C-alpha cells in the first residue's frame, strides 16, 4: 500500500535509523567509560571478593562472641538510650533556633542585601559539608567527652541542612499574598510572619521531624568517638571485650532507630 507521504516516510526511516544508531553509540561509550573508571578505581580501594570470603570465618567468630546478648545489661543501658534521644532532641532544637534567622538571610526575597545572601549561603554550605562525626571529634578534644559535644556536632550540621531547606522553601512561596500584604502597608517583618511563614510552615515542620529522625541515627554513631549515649556504651563494651554487652547496645540502637523512624513518618504524614 503506497501512501501520498511515501517519499517523506522513506526518507524519515533512514534518518530515524541513523539517529537511533547514533544514540546507541553514545550510550555504549558512556557506559564503557564508566566501566573503565570503576575498574581503575577498584584496584586502588583494594576491592577483593577473595578477601571477603576469607574473612567470613572471622565474622562468624565475632558474631558468635556477641551472641547471646547480655540481657542483664538491658536496664543499665536504658539511661544511655534516653541520653541518645536527648542529644538528638537538643541538637535539633538548637538547629531550629539558629536556622530561623539564617534561612531568612539566605533567601533572595527576604535577604536584606545580595552580599548578605552570598555570605550566608557560603556559611551554610560550610556547615553542611562537614560531617557530624568530624565535628564531634574536634569538639570532644575541645570540650571533653560526654553528650555535650554530640549535641553541638548535630546542631552545627543540622543548622546547615535546615537553614538551606527553609531558605529554598521561602524562595518558592506564592508571591501573590506577599504582594497583597505589601499593598496593605504591612512592614517587612509582618509580611514574613503573615505571608511567608504560613506558606512554608508545613514543609518546614515535616523537614524538622525528618532531621530529628536523622539526628537520632547520628547520635548513636557519635557515641563511638566519645560523645555519649548508646554509641559510647557500644564502643566501651567492645574495647573491654564484653561482646555480649555490645550486642545489647546494638539491639537497643536498632530498636531506637526503628521507633524513631516510625514515629517520625507517622507525624510527618499527619502534618501534610
Amino acid at each position: 500500500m503506497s501512501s501520498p507521504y511515501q517519499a517523506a516516510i522513506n526518507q524519515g526511516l533512514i534518518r530515524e535509523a541513523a539517529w537511533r544508531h547514533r544514540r546507541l553509540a553514545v550510550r555504549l561509550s558512556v557506559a564503557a567509560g564508566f566501566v573503565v573508571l570503576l575498574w581503575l578505581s577498584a584496584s586502588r580501594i583494594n576491592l577483593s571478593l577473595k578477601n571477603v570470603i576469607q574473612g567470613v570465618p572471622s565474622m562468624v567468630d565475632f558474631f558468635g562472641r556477641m551472641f547471646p546478648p547480655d540481657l542483664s545489661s538491658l536496664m543499665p543501658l536504658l539511661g544511655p538510650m534516653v541520653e541518645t534521644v536527648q542529644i538528638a532532641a537538643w541538637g535539633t532544637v538548637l538547629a531550629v533556633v539558629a536556622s530561623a534567622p539564617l534561612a531568612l538571610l539566605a533567601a533572595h526575597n527576604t535577604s536584606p542585601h545580595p552580599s548578605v545572601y552570598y555570605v550566608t549561603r557560603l556559611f551554610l554550605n560550610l556547615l553542611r559539608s562537614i560531617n557530624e562525626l568530624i565535628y564531634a571529634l574536634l569538639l570532644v578534644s575541645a570540650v571533653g567527652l560526654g553528650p555535650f559535644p554530640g549535641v553541638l556536632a548535630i546542631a552545627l550540621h543540622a543548622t546547615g541542612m535546615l537553614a538551606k531547606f527553609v531558605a529554598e522553601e521561602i524562595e518558592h512561596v506564592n508571591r501573590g499574598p506577599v504582594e497583597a500584604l505589601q499593598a496593605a502597608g504591612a512592614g517587612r517583618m509582618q509580611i514574613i510572619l503573615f505571608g511567608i511563614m504560613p506558606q512554608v510552615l508545613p514543609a518546614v515542620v515535616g523537614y524538622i521531624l525528618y532531621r530529628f529522625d536523622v539526628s537520632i541515627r547520628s547520635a548513636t554513631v557519635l557515641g563511638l568517638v566519645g560523645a555519649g549515649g548508646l554509641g559510647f556504651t557500644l564502643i566501651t563494651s567492645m574495647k573491654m571485650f564484653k561482646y555480649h554487652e555490645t550486642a545489647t547496645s546494638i539491639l537497643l540502637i536498632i530498636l531506637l532507630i526503628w521507633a524513631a523512624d516510625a514515629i517520625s513518618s507517622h507525624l510527618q504524614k499527619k502534618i501534610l
Partner: protein
Amino acid sequence: MNMNVSTVSQAANAAPVDRSPILSLVNVSKTYVRGKLVALTDVSFDIGQGEFVVILGPSGAGKSTMLRCINRLAQPTGGQVFLRGQEITDAPRSLRKARREIGMVFQQFNLVTRLSVMTNVLSGRLSYRSTWRSLFYSFTREDRAIALECLEMVALGHKAFQRADTLSGGEQQRVAIARALAQQPKIILADEPVASLDPKIARQVLDYLRDVSQRLGISVICNLHQINFAREYAQRIIGLSQGKLIFDGPPGALTDDIISQIYGTRVESSGE
C-alpha cells in the same frame, strides 16, 4: 461588652463630605528596559470621594500597571501621584502610611490560603500595628471588631474561622474585599477582580464592591475588560489603550466608536 469600639461604618458616617479629589494622577508614565518598553504615557485624572470608576481596556493596555503605580507596587518613571493632596510618587518614608489608605483587590484573590478567613481580614490591619505586636500574631479588640464587621458587610461572618482555601472563588474574593475594607481605606483599587469568576458570581462580587463604595464613601478604581460590566457598574469610565488615556466620561457617553478605539477593532457593544 464595650459598645464604644469604633467601627468602620461609624467612622465613615462621621467624616465630612470632601469635595477635593482623593487621588490625582498627573502625567504618569511608566517605561521598562530603559525606555524601550512603554507601558503608560502621560495618564492624568482626578478621583473624587466615593466615585466608582471603571478602567476599561484590552489586556496589555496598561490597566494593571497604572493601578500598581498608584500604590507603588510599580514605580512610575514619569509624572506624579497625589493622595489627598500629598505627593506619594517618591517618598519612601510615608509609603506604608499611604498604602494604608489604599486597599487593593487582586484577580487571583491573593489570600493566605492556609490561614483562617478571620486572620486574612485581620492582616488588613497590620499597617496600624507595631512589628513587636505582630511577632505574637496579636491584634487589638478594635481590630477584631473591625474585621468581623467587614466580613459581615460581605456576608461572610459565618465563615470567619474556616481556612481560607475551603471557600469558593467568589467567597475568597469577598474575603479579599473585606481585607481591603479592614484597612479603613479612602480608595480601593481592584485589578480585574472578577476575571477568574463566572458571570453570576462576578456580578455578586461587583455588587458587594459597589455597595461598600456607596455605604462607606470609598472611591473605587476597578480594572475591567468586560464592557457590559463597565456599563452596569461604573459612574465613570476611563478608557485606556496602549498606555494612553483616550476616554474619560460617564457610561452613557461610551459609543461604539470609542469602544472600537479602545479595543483597536470593531466591537459589538452588546457583547461580552
